[in-house]
């Protein structure tokens, strides 16, 4: 099958469906008319009831004083007040901002550069592309462990540099509370930039060849073509990438658990680690639930404008 990307990327809510012909009368007619809903029901119920139901549960929990077990004694928004007075939470929020901004920016930069490089019809493109893409299959746990080994001051990169003769080389980010959050960025970028590249390549392939040819005929240089034609048409891919990467950043938990364990101290905690620690190991269920709701709010703040623009784009398109 030949999936050209312009058709491939049409989103599901657009046209192209068959109207059910439910003109036969009686039960079978009714069945035929209701079939789509019946068929969809199990999936929809699972997703809707469970996820939205559990979120409701978490919200209720965040309004209670629950500690080790859920206790339905409501205390209003006290837990939220306590949350923002909690130093560890503020550290994890700050870490998230640093981590998310750098992670998204670097992934986009590397991904875009790689995609443009690979779009030059160079030899062995498929092979190189696979190599850039393979970290995607690796779990954050394994990524975290491998980088922990690599960045360990006495074992990995630093020792390597010493063996090469650079005696004064020091690289102690993993145990330095001020720098440890950047080790998370390095490992996460390593894992995700190949995926961003894949999305950009797909976007580049969707750019109209005729327009580029026309621009060439008019004597435009390659950088100009990229700046004026190619990059502007990549805007939707760009936005999708930002949303996906932001979502990966906010829910990062495994990477921290494997690479730094949140340490030294809690210097490299991210909100998800804060939530897990308080809800499940420190017996502060209400506080944990409140932090989960704040994180959800963050995701919605990104997601709602995105979905809104998607829907609007569809109506006008």
């Amino acid at each position, binding site marked *: 099958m030949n999936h050209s990307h312009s058709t491939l990327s049409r989103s599901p809510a657009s046209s192209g469906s068959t109207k059910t012909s439910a003109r036969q009368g009686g039960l079978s007619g009714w069945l035929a008319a209701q079939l789509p809903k019946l068929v969809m029901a199990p999936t929809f119920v699972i997703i809707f009831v469970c996820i939205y139901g559990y979120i409701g549960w978490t919200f209720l929990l965040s309004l209670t004083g629950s500690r080790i077990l859920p206790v339905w004694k409501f205390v209003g928004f006290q837990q939220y007040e306590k949350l923002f007075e909690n130093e560890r939470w503020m550290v994890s929020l700050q870490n998230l901002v640093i981590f998310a901004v750098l992670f998204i920016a670097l992934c986009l930069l590397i991904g875009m550069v790689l995609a443009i490089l690979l779009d030059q019809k160079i030899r062995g493109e498929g092979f190189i592309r696979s190599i850039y*893409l393979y970290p995607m299959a690796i*779990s954050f*746990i394994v990524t975290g*462990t*491998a980088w922990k080994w690599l960045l360990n001051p006495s074992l990995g990169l630093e020792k390597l540099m010493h063996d090469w003769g650079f005696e004064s080389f020091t690289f102690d980010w993993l145990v330095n509370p001020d720098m440890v959050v950047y080790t998370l960025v390095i490992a996460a970028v390593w894992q995700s930039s190949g995926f961003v590249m894949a999305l950009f390549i797909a976007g580049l392939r969707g750019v109209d060849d005729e327009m580029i040819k026309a621009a060439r005929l008019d004597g435009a240089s390659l950088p100009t073509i990229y700046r004026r034609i190619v990059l502007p048409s990549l805007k939707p891919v760009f936005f999708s990438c930002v949303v996906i990467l932001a979502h990966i950043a906010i*829910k990062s938990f495994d990477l921290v658990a494997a690479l730094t364990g949140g340490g030294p101290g809690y210097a490299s905690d991210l909100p998800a680690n804060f939530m897990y620690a308080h809800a499940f190991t420190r017996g502060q269920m209400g506080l944990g639930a409140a932090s*989960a709701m704040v994180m959800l709010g963050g995701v919605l703040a990104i997601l709602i404008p995105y979905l809104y623009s998607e829907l609007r784009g569809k109506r006008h398109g």
Partner: protein
Amino acid sequence: MNRNIMRILARSGFSLLVVLILVFCLFPFYYAIITSFKSSSELFQASYWVNQLHFDNYQHILGQETFIHSLFNSVLVSTLVVGLSLLLGLTASYALGRFEFRGRSTVLMVILAVSMFPQVAVLSGLFEVIRMLGLYNNPFGLVISYMLFTLPFTVWILTTFMQQLPKELEEAAIVDGATPWMTLVRVMMPLLWPALVTTGMLAFIAAWNEFLFALTFTLTDDQRTVPVAIALISGASQYELPWGIIMAASVLVTLPLVIMVLFFQRRIVSGLTAGAVKG
């Protein structure tokens, strides 16, 4: 003349960049692999190739009964998740992709939004329900919880693919008197299998690598999945991790997935772009 030199410079700059990023991509995993083949005395000598293959680490990890249990659990959970997600996803996307009904785009948006929510937002509620169902510390509890996150993107990708198939085929089947179920199984399925392979693989990777739920919903070593098992391997003291064994375990659980991704690279990319890129 000058232009030629410039061009050669640009070319070599390009190649240098490609090679640099290749090294950045390959080195960590390469280093993990050679570490896994070192004996414990060689472990702390930095070297960039293997002088002598030592299988001690692999023997050790494969001799551990709990690790074998974890592997088995991971295979069981991932396979079930893929099977169930595809079955439910297929029927749902058939309805969403092929029939017009009121509220269809709302349903799609609700489903898409779900796949973006942070897992911790449902963690407490899910924990209570799984305990209530008696599925705590049980791989089947994991299957249920993973489905919540694999189903949305399965439905989304399959719906996109479903809409690209020509309508005429299906109409012909309906004219010939085929029931919707028969149309789905006999007409649509053979055309959909590339999409099924893609989504199945993505669901498999997601389930195989999942950590937060697996950590929260299991208690004992024999019920764990491999990511948790690897994360919890520890040495005699906290500062003395058995690196060789950890790396051997990491390589063992990663290699099948890496091979799969390399093999099906094109399919995965087209599957990913189906949901994320708009032309």
